[in-house]
């Protein structure tokens, strides 16, 4: 599964992209984030405040309770601030 991180999520994780293979039992985005947070101190810092995280599955913006299904690309990032 291709992970993408943007803005301060990217800075805290320490990379903008990584490939991960979550274990079975990771059903939703929230499960995935819990699991990612165990990978490093940077991941833990990036994902500490769940309320400030937004996400997309295969480039569609979705809530954190969304099932991962057969997601190929998952992006995690702060609330957007364009314009």
């Amino acid at each position: 599964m291709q992970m993408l991180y943007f803005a301060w999520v990217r800075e805290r994780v320490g990379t903008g992209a990584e490939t991960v293979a979550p274990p079975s039992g990771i059903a939703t985005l929230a499960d995935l984030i819990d699991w990612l947070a165990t990978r490093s101190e940077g991941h833990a810092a990036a994902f500490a405040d769940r309320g400030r995280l937004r996400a997309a599955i295969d480039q569609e913006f979705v809530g954190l309770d969304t099932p991962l299904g057969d997601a190929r690309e998952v992006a995690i990032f702060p609330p957007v601030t364009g314009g």
Partner: protein
Amino acid sequence: MIRIHVSPAAIDLAAEMAATQAPGCGAVATFAGHVRADDGVSVLELEHYPGATEAALARVAEGAVARWALGAATIVHRVGPMHPGDAIVFVAAAAAHRSAALEACAYLIDRLKTDAPFWKRETRPAGAGWVEARAADDAAAARWDGP
């Protein structure tokens, strides 16, 4: 005619305005956002999610074209580092009559602010940091939600 561009190049506002036209469309409304020089920001950097950004902007534009029967809609967003006075974003809507063009223009910029994956990082005298999302932007976008 929908035109979407996301690029690190400076935005040519005049060319973008001139390109937003269509037969029968006597009304063209535009909005440009510029980096403000008055709050100590020396550099504003825009990060985005390539691919997803363009798709999100196209959905915003398609929504406006369908809702107001626009003849043309343009969304141009700059990314990368920029400086005070630089244009960050330009949106424009062309319609037969002015109320449609004006409302659609406001919709384009309101929706862009909440629906497209851009992130702003400011460098100020005191240091650099990511801009926080504003509740006012969510409220402005939500006023276009309807039955």
